[in-house]
């Protein structure tokens, strides 16, 4: 660590965290390497694949396109937090049930992005809207169809629609 390092203080999954970080440390590397929260994945490292998607102050962001030093004072939520709180439990169950994952590499980012759509949606989103919202998350296994099925099923279930 260099003499350029800075102290940051933030909340990660509900816990206060204080660390000293090098300015060049990206948020996702900070989460994985310094906090051992390895649920957020590192794929392309230039904002294309979406595997590192996490929530900062309630909004989804690319963990590879934010620096840890920028998160001083922020509230960060990773897939570990979303999973432990039960917020995405129905999505996780639907992904499993509908084979919406194979290798699982994209799944944490996919879940965070899907949850972002569902928590904002005032009505059940169309399949087209679901596809558009997850357009920034690559999956190389499923062909997306099963993922859209899973997200759509949860959207309908949450809205009380019976199928």
């Amino acid at each position: 660590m260099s003499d350029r390092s800075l102290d940051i203080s933030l909340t990660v999954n509900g816990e206060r965290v204080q660390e000293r970080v090098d300015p060049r440390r990206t948020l996702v590397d900070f989460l994985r390497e310094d906090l051992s929260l390895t649920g957020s994945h590192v794929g392309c490292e230039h904002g294309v694949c979406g595997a590192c998607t996490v929530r900062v102050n309630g909004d989804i962001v690319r963990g590879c396109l934010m620096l840890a030093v920028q998160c001083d004072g922020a509230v960060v939520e990773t897939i570990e937090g979303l999973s432990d709180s039960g917020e995405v439990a129905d999505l996780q169950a639907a992904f499993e049930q509908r084979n919406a994952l194979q290798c699982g590499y994209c799944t944490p980012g996919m879940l965070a992005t899907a949850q972002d759509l569902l928590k904002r949606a005032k009505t059940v989103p169309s399949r087209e809207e679901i596809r558009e919202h997850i357009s920034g998350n690559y999956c190389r296994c499923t062909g997306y169809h099963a993922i859209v099925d899973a997200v759509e099923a949860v959207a309908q279930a949450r809205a009380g629609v019976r199928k």
Partner: protein
Amino acid sequence: MKPAPFAYKKARTLEEAVALLGEKDARLLAGGQSLIATLNMRLSSPSLLIDINGIGGLDGISVKGGMVEIGALARHVQAERSDVVAKNAPLIARAMPHIGHPAIRNRGTLGGSIAFADPAAELPACLLALDGEVEATGPKGKRTIKAQDFFNGLFETALGPQEVLTAIRVPAAAKDTRVGFAELARRHGDYAIVGLAASGRGDGKGLADVRLAFFGVGNTPLRVKKAEAALTAGNIDAAVNALELEPHDDVQATAKVKKHLAGVLLRRVAKQLLEARA
């Protein structure tokens, strides 16, 4: 890859940011959605990053004196959800969903996109099509630069080394304002293979003051004045034939394909201009 080492300072005021830009190899960090990618790829390695996200008062969206003013730090998501933008800058509203993906739009800023001047990006073309302008703040104060004088070359703008882009302004839409927007990308939200932003005035019979700005086909967004004249005269076929674009082959498509697609987009956008009501 990981970024090369750099120092990081958070500017609290615009004056502080301008002063820090005087340091060697300093770069401004706004939304970071292009800059941090280039740092990770080591395409750029500044010695100092000046984080301007903490400067207050630079993210407003308002209508002043017939112009829509958007602060440089307004994030894409703000513009996407803004009623002011939807009503008064419909071209920008229409372009917004094509810019990156939700997670990118939550961080990326309109000022950053214009200042970065990516030739395949949507907003520089919108600014040019709308005859908009940029407000820059430097050591000598503020100045205004017209869009047509702003984009000088590949990732090159008229901004001086110590200037900060602080706002963009476009004329507020009038009753007869017509806009059109279309782009082709391999994946929704990716940079365009070819794109077109357009504005004009329509009275239900014909078009006037047509401005067409293509992106992804040159080093800067490009106006095509012969095609604009043909479209104003009401001849879509002539407009397509009058396109004088000389794109280069790139990783996405050959020059020949791009030229063909530019004509396809022009037909789609012409239809929008003739039909749409602002």
